[in-house]
């Protein structure tokens, strides 16, 4: 009798635990479902809106030719509301070009700063700098945009004048690149710093015990060991550069044709194009921005796939 009771209790206890388990799993499941469905709804919405220009007659303007759209070197051939000859080929090139240039500035500076904070600076200074970096990464992008249009544009304009180049009030590729570099710098620094700091002390000691200097150790062993985390910071940096709209549209100059490869040319990116005049337009000129959105998502996806592939390669192969 007592034995059965004991047994019964155990089953009851167990099933109660199991019930809680099921409940919690249910809550997790539902949360996952909610966030997944929000993403799916957004994608469906943008896809439907973005595909419309290519399959409908756009109130008499005619279908947008997808090949022309993807390779075009002019945003709109003809006047708005009377033409369907849109093109974003040059904007895709602008976007990738700008993202790469800003990475070329922000990566070296960010990684060196991270190395300084993690390994070189005295403890107090490094705590101070770490706080500064954290604050910087919390600043909203519009502030960087305002700083860009108030300070960087003036600097670029003056510099261009000095070297005898006409610039449209400083709006240019270089101004955009500088603003984006500044914006992605804190992210890159913070993530690289964590990666550098988590490199094992034993590896560092191993290098020093071989008669390597601190500098040699930092550059040849510590950075090499942190390369996977540093690469992750680059991926996030590129993401920020590709996805930023507000700050970019304040300093890019919003060119309507291109691509703009000269540093002092005005330019435009996929995001700034989507944003520009969004509130004042309707019909095809409105819908086409969703098509640009699809292109942007694909560009980001492809960049991430490529960078992750490279990261895996770099992570497993020896570095010199």
């Amino acid at each position, binding site marked *: 009798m007592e034995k059965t009771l004991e047994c019964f209790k155990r089953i009851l206890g167990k099933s109660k635990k199991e019930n809680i388990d099921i409940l919690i799993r249910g809550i997790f499941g539902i949360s996952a479902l909610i966030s997944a469905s929000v993403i799916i709804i957004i994608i469906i919405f943008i896809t439907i809106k973005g595909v419309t220009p290519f399959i409908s007659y756009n109130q008499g303007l005619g279908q947008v030719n997808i090949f022309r759209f993807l390779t075009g070197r002019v945003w709109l051939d003809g006047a708005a509301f009377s033409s369907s000859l849109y093109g974003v080929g040059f904007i895709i090139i602008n976007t990738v070009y700008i993202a790469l240039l800003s990475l070329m500035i922000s990566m070296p500076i960010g990684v060196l700063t991270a190395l300084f904070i993690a390994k070189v600076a005295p403890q107090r200074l490094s705590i101070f700098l770490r706080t500064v970096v954290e604050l910087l990464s919390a600043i909203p992008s519009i502030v960087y945009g305002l700083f860009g249009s108030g300070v960087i544009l003036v600097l670029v304009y003056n510099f261009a004048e000095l070297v005898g180049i006409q610039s449209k009030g400083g709006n240019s590729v270089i101004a955009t690149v500088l603003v984006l570099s500044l914006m992605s710098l804190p992210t890159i620094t913070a993530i690289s710093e964590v990666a550098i700091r988590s490199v094992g002390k*034993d590896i560092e000691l191993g290098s020093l015990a071989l008669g390597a200097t601190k500098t040699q150790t930092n550059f040849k062993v510590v950075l090499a060991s942190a390369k996977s985390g540093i690469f992750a910071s680059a991926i996030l940096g590129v993401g920020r550069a590709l996805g930023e709209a507000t700050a970019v549209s304040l300093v890019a100059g919003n060119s309507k044709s291109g691509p703009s490869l000269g540093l002092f040319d005005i330019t435009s990116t996929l995001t700034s194009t989507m944003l520009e005049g969004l509130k004042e337009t309707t019909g095809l000129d409105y819908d086409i921005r969703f098509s640009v959105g699809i292109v942007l998502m694909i560009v980001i996806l492809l960049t991430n796939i490529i960078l992750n592939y490279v990261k895996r390669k770099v992570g497993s192969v020896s570095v010199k």
Partner: protein
Amino acid sequence: MDNIFSIKDLDLYYGNFQALKSISLDIDRNKVTALIGPSGCGKSTFLRCLNRMNDLIENCKIEGKIQYSQMDIQTKSFNVIELRTKVGMVFQKPNPFPMSIYDNVAYGPRCSGIKKKSELDVIVEKALKRAALYEEVSSRLKDNALGLSGGQQQRLCIARAIAMEPDVILMDEPTSALDPIATLKIEELINDLKRNYTIVIVTHNMQQAARISDKTAFFLMGELIEIDSTDKIFTQPKNKKTEDYITGRFG
């Protein structure tokens, strides 16, 4: 008999804590010296004095005299970098760099300025052969060193130290993270190496000390209790504490 190291009245403090108390001893050239003693008695601390790795520990203060080849290494002006190329170190846990096997061995020479590929090739091959690792890895020198087994990694770390052509190799419990077979390989290697190098090895394994060392030093609570030929220490120690320790009565 010539001494490669000669230590006189060495005191070492971590902050207020005195970890080494008035240590005086000589280390013979081209011999294996084993340091034994219970955990926390200061063996690793002493070992780190010999290539000044204690410099890297904050608030570590050293008093006394450490001579390496008749040179005073504690003086400020002494070139630590050069000392460490002459006095190599192998750590308890294998710590290969996350790069290829070749680059691991070539690392030290590269840092000291050797750039020529042909020269490095010779150094790497020679070091790997001396560390009895060459045959196992010759076909995959470009592979990442982290893919090696623990025992191979430790021999790689020894090869890495050998590549610098040091006089002395310091080893801090180099086999404590390894299985018996890998341990045996390292012990054989140490027996080979002692013809060309002076080896100072910390070990918790009495049999190991007896098997591979010529001299044994027994430390206890920061003091050097006794140093003598290994035979003497293990058969007729002078000090009662040494006898207690090696017969396993404490520690």
